């Protein structure tokens, strides 16, 4: 029963996160381009060692984003999942420790992969079908760069916080 309630809370929290991303952040010019809440939440969950939750948030978040986006269904879902997949693969095969530089690099690559997948998806859709989804590539790439920076900063803060908690906990013990 506890597990069920916990799952429900995660589910609602994810929906709330997507709602905030879609409504609140999209209208506030200051935040909209520089942060992608769903991607960031998934990456942060990967960093703190909750890959199952990361996948849950990523899949549900991407799914809802696709429902409300004007792009072909699956673009966000696949992009976010690829991003999570890359993050997890890097964590297990390349950056095995949680050093600050490792996490920063990992987050950079994962966020970049998300944007690259998304742009490639739209580009492929335009090429393979009669669709014409125009996206301002230069603008999107600039925003992707800013987003990477912000995501890295957030990831770094979290790692620092974890380190501090661990150190503080060890001292107190």
């Amino acid at each position, binding site marked *: 029963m506890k597990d069920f309630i*916990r799952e429900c809370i995660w589910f609602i929290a994810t*929906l*709330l996160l*997507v*709602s*905030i991303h*879609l*409504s*609140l952040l999209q*209208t*506030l*010019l200051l935040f909209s381009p520089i942060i992608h809440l769903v991607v960031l939440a998934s990456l942060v969950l990967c960093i703190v*060692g*909750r*890959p*199952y*939750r990361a*996948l849950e948030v990523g*899949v549900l978040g*991407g*799914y*809802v984003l*696709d*429902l*409300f986006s004007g792009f072909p*269904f*699956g673009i966000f*879902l*696949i992009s976010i*999942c*690829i991003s*999570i*997949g890359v993050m*997890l*693969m890097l*964590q*297990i095969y390349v950056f095995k420790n949680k050093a600050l530089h490792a996490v920063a690099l990992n987050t950079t690559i994962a966020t970049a992969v998300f944007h690259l997948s998304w742009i490639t998806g739209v580009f492929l859709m335009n090429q393979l079908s009669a669709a014409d989804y125009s996206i301002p590539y230069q603008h999107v790439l600039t925003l992707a760069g800013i987003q990477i920076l912000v995501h890295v900063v957030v990831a770094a803060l979290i790692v620092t916080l974890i380190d501090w908690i661990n150190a503080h906990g060890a001292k107190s013990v």
Partner: protein
Amino acid sequence: MWGDRGHHQRITWWHVPAVCMLFVLGHYTRVLQPVENLLTRVIQPAQAMMYAATHDEVLVSDQQAVYEELTKQELLDEYGRLEQRLQQLLIDNTRLRTALEESQLLQEQVAFLQENHYRFVNTRITSVSTENISPTVIVNVGAQAGVSLGLPVVIADGVLVGIVTDVQEYASEVRLITNLDSRVSAVVQNSTQSPGIVRGEHNLSLVMDFIPQLDQIALHDSVFTNGADTHIPQGLLIGQVQEIRAEPGSLFQQAALKPFFQQNEITIVSILLP
């Protein structure tokens, strides 16, 4: 493989694309349609709330930011542009309203004509004839569409507006029933179906002559065609009794009628074919 704190689930890398593909397939095969509907219903109220909370404020602040950066001359130019745009929108709006009204009238007209199994041709009034002082109008169909002299011209629910008096290949002249020279056989819709002749008066209204003196007619009685004229079927609306003029000792009484149309309001008419 990664362990997830608080969960027994263990996921491997291939779970990610697998789950992802399952969802995409579920969407395109519509298996997940009920779930999507539910998600949409759940999320939309929250989104609407957040959007409403920020949108107005953002719009205003964006607009203010834009205007604050403009010089006086730029503001004047912007004002001029907006004024022009407003004019254009007003013109467009008027055109659309006219088109809508015409469409509604035409629908009504066609419904009436089809209901009564009349053969007809719809046409548009292109101008008012300049040759006569009395009201005649020109329509843009002629002999090529089967129009011939004496055919009745109607609008809306079978309101007689005129008679074809001149036919060319691609245009015809219609003499309105309010014309001084117009004559139409008619009956009053009363208990005795009083007959008479309707003619135009002052090119604006109608008068019904030769109504038998002893017949009882009342104000607001409707007057219809009686079918006695060639090509003009029975039952077309002409007007409504507005005033009764009965002189003692006279054989007939007279009624002033109010026509069911105004010349400047008719744009699309139907000509009833034989």
